[in-house]
């Protein structure tokens, strides 16, 4: 996958977030402060504009531009978390990203989210979708699945992880202030990060 293919992935993520802006905001209103869709849409719109204005010349430059833009534009908790994820992905990306390289990039992003947010799986955060998705991608590629099938497995794992946040009681972020009342709703961050995987499956066809 070259810079153009990976740019298409980031743009598709922006499009999906725009399309699901109300859903993300409603999920956040239920257990947070009701701005996740608005903030992510604002940040990713800025990322798309930055890609138009300064087309990156490498996967690393692409992810760095996305990360810096998100940190500068999103605010809240999502800005540092998604921003750190993309900056770590930039550091892990080779000039041309093959299937195992993509898994490595995604895992670097996951590690960045965990380090910045100090959350662990089960806290009802974006990690609950991202972590099983990265594991599923690794497992499928190791088992010799073609890239498309491995991405499909990652999407499925993310969706299952997202659904599994519904009964959880939040232990991080603003949702944690609700205690038991945070149960019964999907986590907005787990929902938006599932869109990142969905966008990958829709745009990336492999090396």
């Amino acid at each position, binding site marked *: 996958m070259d810079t153009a293919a990976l740019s298409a992935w980031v743009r598709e993520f922006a499009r999906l977030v725009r399309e699901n802006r109300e859903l993300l905001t409603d999920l956040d209103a239920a257990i947070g402060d009701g701005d996740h869709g*608005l903030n992510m849409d604002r940040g990713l719109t800025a990322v798309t504009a930055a890609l138009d204005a300064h087309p990156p010349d490498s996967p690393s430059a692409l992810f760095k531009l996305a990360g810096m833009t998100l940190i500068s534009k999103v605010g809240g908790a999502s800005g540092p978390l998604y921003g750190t994820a993309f900056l770590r992905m930039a550091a892990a990306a080779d000039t041309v990203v093959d299937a195992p390289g993509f898994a490595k990039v995604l895992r670097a992003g996951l590690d960045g989210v965990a380090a910045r947010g100090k959350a662990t799986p089960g806290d009802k955060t974006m990690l609950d979708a991202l972590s099983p998705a990265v594991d599923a991608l690794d497992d499928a590629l190791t088992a010799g699945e073609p890239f498309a099938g491995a991405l499909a497995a990652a999407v499925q794992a993310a969706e299952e992880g997202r659904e599994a946040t519904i009964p959880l009681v939040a232990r991080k972020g603003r949702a944690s202030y609700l205690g038991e009342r945070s149960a019964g709703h999907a986590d907005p961050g787990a929902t938006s990060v599932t869109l990142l995987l969905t966008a990958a499956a829709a745009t990336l066809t492999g090396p």
Partner: protein
Amino acid sequence: MKKLVNDPADVISDALLGFAAAHPEVRVDHEHRVVVRGDAPVRGKVGLVSGGGSGHEPLHAGFVGPGMLDAACAGEIFTSPVPDQMVAATRAVDGGAGVLHIVKNYTGDVMNFEMAAELAEAGTGVSVTAVVTDDDVAVQDSLYTAGRRGVGVTVLVEKLAGAAAEQGRPLAGVADVARKVNANGRSMGVALTSCTVPAAGKPTFDLPPGEMEVGIGIHGEPGRRRVPVAPASEIADMLVSPILADLDYTGSPVIAFVNGMGATPLIELYVMFHEVGHLLAKAGVPVARSLVGPYITSLDMAGCSVTLLRADEELLRLWDAPVRTPALRWGV
């Protein structure tokens, strides 16, 4: 939604234009959305920077001026500002004695201020200390949450640490005052209605007419429990009792702060202050100073919060020190 706005997307920029026009004694960096004290940086004085999501006005920009903050960063509504803003504010107020960041304990605010402190220190060598406020007793079990929220005590920290900085105390001393205020202050709030974020256009949560939310924060997040609306005397008890249960105030003079959440009229806040005073007298807690009004709000939410600060002689002297800001002004 009925609001005095143009395009909801422009509400913060538009409000900052008005703020700048109304208060020529402060400087407004519209690009970064940072409000800076007019004479900043003050040579040899510790600079105080705070900031947070917008929608809590007058917090924080209304508290920029001599005796309080040197700069305030305005984020999107209820959303932490970004590190770029905090770095710009830190540079603008660095008078050579270091900069104190006053951060309300919310996941996003803490992460963005952490990144900003790293960037500012790496960029210019300015020495930054952060103090995080977390006074909200509604959040009970900090092992399983992001910890207590920073609410009403933040106003008192900004006033008292601001006075300490104005006296010329060094960064460590100003940070100590801020930590002492946070450690000795507790708050609890109640909402009678939700609030409406302009860009969302509808109330953040549903609250039936006969009910209220006890233990709310300041971002329109629902509270800990929902109960039928009650007389002010009972509501005061719901707010004061958990505070007194959390910290021993017996015999210690307090600064008592009854804060409006945005849509509650002052007359109701005074009714509440009377009830709070009554409860404190019964508990043997003397009120040494008071503050009543909407100072840390949640857009158009109706309701109030109570903050009680155990205050020794030092804190009372700092409280009485002159302050000259758009929203808090005395002794000048």
